[in-house]
């Protein structure tokens, strides 16, 4: 049976998803991007094909997406992750109207209609602490991983205000508060709230409409998800049975299948 691939070349990780003619996901891999996009693209594709039990010859079409989509060295068209995210989200959750993708490098909010078509999108402003990098940096300086950060955040009773205009300043603020003996939980929750309020401004631009799905690395952070839910006053759908980072790659694979027809 023929298969189709979607490759998402992001700043932090490169993802591949393989689907078959029955639109089933038969292979999915995530690897670190490194500096050589071509190498990562090749590696993640062959790893995903192996998982799918397919050979290179079975692969009928590829679509690449993400920032590295033009330099994968693979044969196939490139599509933006905005479209691919929409397609992927709609595939699993056709009731979704707003998709929030919180990645390492950027953050996007995408409005889709009932048929999964993109009707509007907004990306994070320049000079904004509105990306996954914000939390990653500070987690590193606190010697915590993101999962731990998320857990601490949801269990915190209070949140301390942390600047959300600049990652570097926020880091300084965190260090200063810790040295003043302020509670870590409050700081961590404050950080999640700061990032959530930046993301919230993107969603608000699109006009909130149920239901809302979150994907990307940020979706794995329960602290962040919780703070965004509090701000929008609605619960957020998370991709079921799939690493949330794979949504755009799924969308790309689906488009690859359509393109091959």
């Amino acid at each position: 049976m023929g298969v189709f691939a979607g490759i998402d070349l992001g700043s932090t990780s490169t993802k591949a998803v393989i689907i078959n003619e029955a639109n089933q996901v038969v292979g999915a891999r995530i690897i670190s991007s490194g500096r050589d996009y071509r190498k990562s693209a090749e590696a993640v594709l062959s790893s995903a094909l192996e998982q799918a039990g397919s050979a290179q010859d079975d692969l009928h079409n590829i679509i690449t997406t993400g920032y590295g989509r033009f330099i994968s060295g693979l044969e196939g068209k490139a599509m933006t992750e905005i479209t691919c995210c929409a397609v992927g989200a709609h595939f699993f959750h056709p009731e979704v109207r707003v998709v929030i993708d919180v990645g390492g490098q950027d953050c996007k909010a995408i409005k889709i209609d009932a048929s999964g078509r993109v009707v509007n999108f907004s990306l994070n402003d320049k000079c904004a602490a509105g990306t996954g990098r914000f939390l990653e940096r500070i987690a590193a300086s606190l010697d915590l991983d993101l999962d731990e950060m998320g857990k601490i955040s949801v269990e915190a009773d209070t949140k301390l205000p942390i600047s959300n205009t600049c990652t570097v300043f926020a880091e300084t603020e965190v260090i200063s508060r810790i040295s003043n003996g302020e509670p870590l939980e409050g700081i961590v929750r404050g950080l999640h709230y700061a990032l959530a309020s930046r993301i919230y401004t993107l969603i608000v631009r699109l006009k909130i409409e149920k239901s809302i799905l979150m994907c990307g690395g940020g979706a794995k952070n329960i602290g962040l998800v919780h703070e965004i839910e509090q701000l929008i006053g609605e619960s957020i759908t998370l991709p079921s049975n799939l690493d949330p980072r794979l949504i755009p790659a799924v969308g790309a694979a689906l488009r690859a299948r359509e393109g091959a027809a």
Partner: protein
Amino acid sequence: MSGIEQITRIARDIEGYLKAVRKKSGKRMIGVMHPVVPQEIIYAAGLHPIRLFPLIREPITLAQSHLHTYTSSIFRAIWDQTLKGVYSFLDGVVLPESCETVTFFARGWQWHRPGDFVTAIAGSRFKKTENAIDFFAKEIRSLSLAMDEFSGTKTSNGKFQEAVQVFNRNRELLRMVYELRKNDIPPLSGSETFDLCMASFVMDKEENNRLLDQIIGELNARKKGTKPKARLMVSGPCLVDRSFFEAVESSGAMIVADDTNTGSRSFWHTVVENGEPFASLARSYSTVPCPFTTSAEDRLRYISNMAKDFKVDGIIFSVEKWCESEKMDFPYLQKEIATRLGLPVTLVETEYLGDLAPIRTRVEGLVESISK
């Protein structure tokens, strides 16, 4: 409770205070932006004018859908809080022709909140000719007609004169407070002055006058503190955060003077009494030294006089990150202040809920260089 305690309490919860006042007096409240709007007109029509500022400390969220990031964070915060219903006690707003963000409000506010009463007033900008003053006077008359229509009254000349007297007295009292800051050991700090001004900008003026009178007496009787490490002046647009003043004064210096919209610019002029009210107001309000109506040269004069009178050791230009009119004047002002006054100058950028650590560093650097 002393007068100082009363005014501080108001300043610390302006939202709560105004809600209570609105409920008690029933007088409709009209918000104004900037010190260039002749509030006497609003007062004379039986309404309660208040200066609009962000009243709660909360990240800007809703406003970001309408106003992009490269606009003053103070105005974005005001808009954010308007959308969030923070100004539930407000019945309308008067917007001056100032910068484009405020001009946007003239349309944007009506667009998003069509039920609100919104009116705008142009001014003479940089021109101080008779022609320009005459135009400004006509604009003030138009504002008066709008206020009358809104309030359902017809304001008499007597009411105008009374309003001018009340506001003149108010400005005089605030200047008297400032006069005390010329002392070697000022009886109140910059942060206390901030509280006093911010409360005064929203209180009923007659009540405010009584309180200020009382406060001046209290300040004269206050036990002397210690001489500040350095006497500083701040120059900038709307400084709305007490923590900014506290951060500056944590260096051991004291802010003894200012050139800000939330300080002296609001009350450094006096309206001629018993004259034709619109022309008198126009003439006086055209001297308010906001950068959007004033040339850099005239601003230099204002700043220099204040720096000399208040024996200032250094000047901190505290400019909102996206305030272009203040930033445009800065290169000229910095150079001239250095050469003509020989005063050290530093520039700090402020942002709504912005981080104060960089500001502290710069101010401490300035104070150390002064105290050496």
